[in-house]
């Protein structure tokens, strides 16, 4: 059976035969760079199309259906439109920061691609502090958003950026605590270890109630972290027109837009990895036949399936909930999610020490 793992290792072998290790590393890095960029573009196109279709079906519409087969080329056409548009820079803006901000957001999203396991043994960089890396790097995007909001010289942008800053900084705590509870169970920060520990069942099932609470907190926190409705305070369309990206146009706006969707993909991928077993097939303890059938499905499909299921969940939130107010948003975090998350972490520690989880 062809798998991504075999393709990558055969490329590595072929290269190693004819080049020195230094050059092999350089060539591989280039290939990976191209791969990540392509994946980025593809994700943007697919997720935007998915969002439009999901929203359309929830809103009793059809959605894009003209360009390409059943409208599949619609997002491509939109991207071309955005590419050829003039990227305006307002007169009063801080030109350097204004133009630099979309790239910060974009780079932040790109860096997060590194530790994500796309399939069995397919991971760009399996660093031993993977989870820590994710929580650290995911906060970079807030700097970009603050920069964009401040440098636009627009009051709406400024308000949006300030809201976004308050929101992301506070919700990161909850997301971090939720992630930590899984780290406690596995005892390792390395992503591949975490996946390996889910060989006989996903943590959401094995970890009992604390894991489920963590999962719920994680989903809420990452929805807020990616500035998605019902937590889209930063760009609250009916209040602040478009929030921090009010003044952006053309490709600079598209970069923000793309980064938003890539961020969704990444947080969902992390959620799938930590709680739903990443690329691990669905296994139930001793159901040998069932487990074997599940093993036939390629690991990359498992990973993508789980991730997209979570993405659908987050899109579902967006199109069915009203938006919270800024103070309610912060109350939710500081008064409810954070205390619950901390107690849950203690509970999880107890579960881990006593070994009450399914081993």
């Amino acid at each position: 059976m062809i798998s991504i793992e075999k393709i990558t290792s055969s490329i590595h072998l072929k290269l190693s035969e004819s080049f020195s290790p230094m050059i092999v590393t350089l060539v591989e890095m280039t290939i990976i760079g191209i791969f990540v960029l392509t994946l980025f573009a593809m994700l943007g196109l697919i997720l935007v199309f998915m969002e439009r279709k999901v929203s359309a079906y929830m809103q009793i519409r059809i959605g894009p259906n003209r360009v390409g087969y059943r409208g599949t080329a619609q997002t491509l056409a939109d991207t071309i439109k955005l590419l050829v548009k003039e990227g305006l820079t307002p007169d009063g803006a801080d030109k350097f920061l204004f133009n630099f901000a979309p790239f910060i957001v974009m780079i932040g999203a790109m860096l997060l691609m590194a530790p994500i396991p796309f399939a069995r043994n397919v991971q760009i960089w399996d660093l031993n502090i993977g989870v820590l890396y994710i929580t650290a790097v995911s906060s970079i995007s807030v700097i970009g958003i603050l920069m964009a909001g401040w440098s636009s010289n627009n009051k709406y942008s400024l308000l949006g950026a300030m809201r976004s800053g308050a929101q992301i900084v506070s919700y990161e705590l909850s997301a971090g605590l939720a992630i930590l509870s899984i780290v406690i169970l596995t005892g390792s920060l390395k992503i591949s270890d975490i996946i390996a520990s889910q060989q006989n069942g996903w943590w959401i099932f094995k970890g009992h109630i604390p894991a489920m609470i963590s999962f719920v907190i994680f989903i809420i926190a990452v929805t807020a972290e990616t500035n998605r409705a019902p937590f889209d305070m930063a760009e609250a369309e009916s209040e602040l027109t478009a929030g921090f990206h009010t003044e952006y146009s053309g490709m600079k706006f598209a970069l923000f837009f793309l980064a938003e969707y890539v961020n969704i993909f990444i947080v969902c991928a992390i959620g799938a990895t930590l709680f739903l077993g990443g690329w691990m097939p669905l296994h139930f303890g001793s159901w040998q036949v069932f487990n074997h059938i599940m093993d036939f499905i390629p690991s990359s499909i498992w990973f993508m399936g789980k991730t997209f299921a979570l993405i659908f969940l987050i899109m579902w939130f967006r199109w069915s909930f009203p938006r919270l107010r800024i103070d309610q948003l912060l109350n939710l975090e500081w008064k409810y999610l954070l205390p619950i998350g901390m107690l849950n972490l203690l509970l999880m520690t107890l579960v881990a020490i006593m070994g009450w989880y399914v081993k």
Partner: protein
Amino acid sequence: MFTEVGTTELGDLIINVGPQHPSTHGVLHLVITLNGETVKKVEPHLGYIHRSIEKMCESLTYRQFIYVTSRMDYLSSHINNHGCALVVEKGLQIEVPERAQYIRVLLDELTRLASHQLWWGAMAMDVGAITPFFHAFREREMINDIMEQTCGARLTMNFIVPGGCMYDIHPDFVHRTKEFILFFKSKLCEYDEMVTNNIIFKNRMQNVGFISREDAISYGCSGPVARASGVSCDIRKLYPYEVYSKVEFTEAIEMAGDCYARYQVRMKEMNESMRIIDQLIDNIPEGEFQAKTKAVLKLPKGDYYSRVETARGDFGVFVMSEGGTTPYRIKFRSPGFSNLSALHHMVKGNKIGDMVAIMGSLDLVIPDIDR
């Protein structure tokens, strides 16, 4: 002009909301003074769609001026026309045939339903839920289709003439209306599931934008805004016109005075409107749909005032006649104008997000305010 607004301190942020802004539903321009996220002062700047309809009407005849008023509150255009026709009929003492009265009231209530549906969608969109808007439009489209079949237009119906209606109703009208009412009754529960009982929505609406009974009266609020504060002000109940005295319905009154109360008043009103339609639709009497009137209408010297209840509240038409074919002076008392004047009172001290919710709950239609 904008910098000298009110008393601003160092650190206050003055923002122009509108005239082009997603939450102002038109070309309303608000200058808001912010302290952080808290709104200190809201000042409406009107006139972006001011067409001086009152002046225009002074040169139109009594048959013509009715149709200009469709362009004021375009969401309850039929009720506006109704009010204007009533004032002409009052002046000329025209007896409107019963069939015409039934048709007018039926269309009034359908208009009210359509207006409230649009408001419901827009209200949900103001607090950030976009999906309900499309659901509201699905039902509203059915009303528009019924209107189109009978009146020939979907938004500005212009179906009323002094003395009755322009045409008889379409043969399908009765059965399509019944079909719609049946359909909408099932959908109204869906509205509740989707928005009314949503916990986020409740949190956004409850205890926001409070206005007391006294303040509501003092600010001249009318319609659902005043009724949510416990003021009984339904013109249909207090001063029944046409067949409203014959139908049974309850005036929707809430005591809380916040956004959620205003929301609930409108939801109840939709039910009441359907109740009125249910009572009337099977009993439309046979007969003329238009009274015989002279070709040229001349109101006797004097002044006339008629009040009707639009979807937004108390709509008044003041006509001063000098005995000629055109009115000497016309004044429209638009409900939105008075409701808007209470905006600052409701908003001050709340957050920006609340301001948007409050504006949604006031159900402002800008052409109605600017005239």
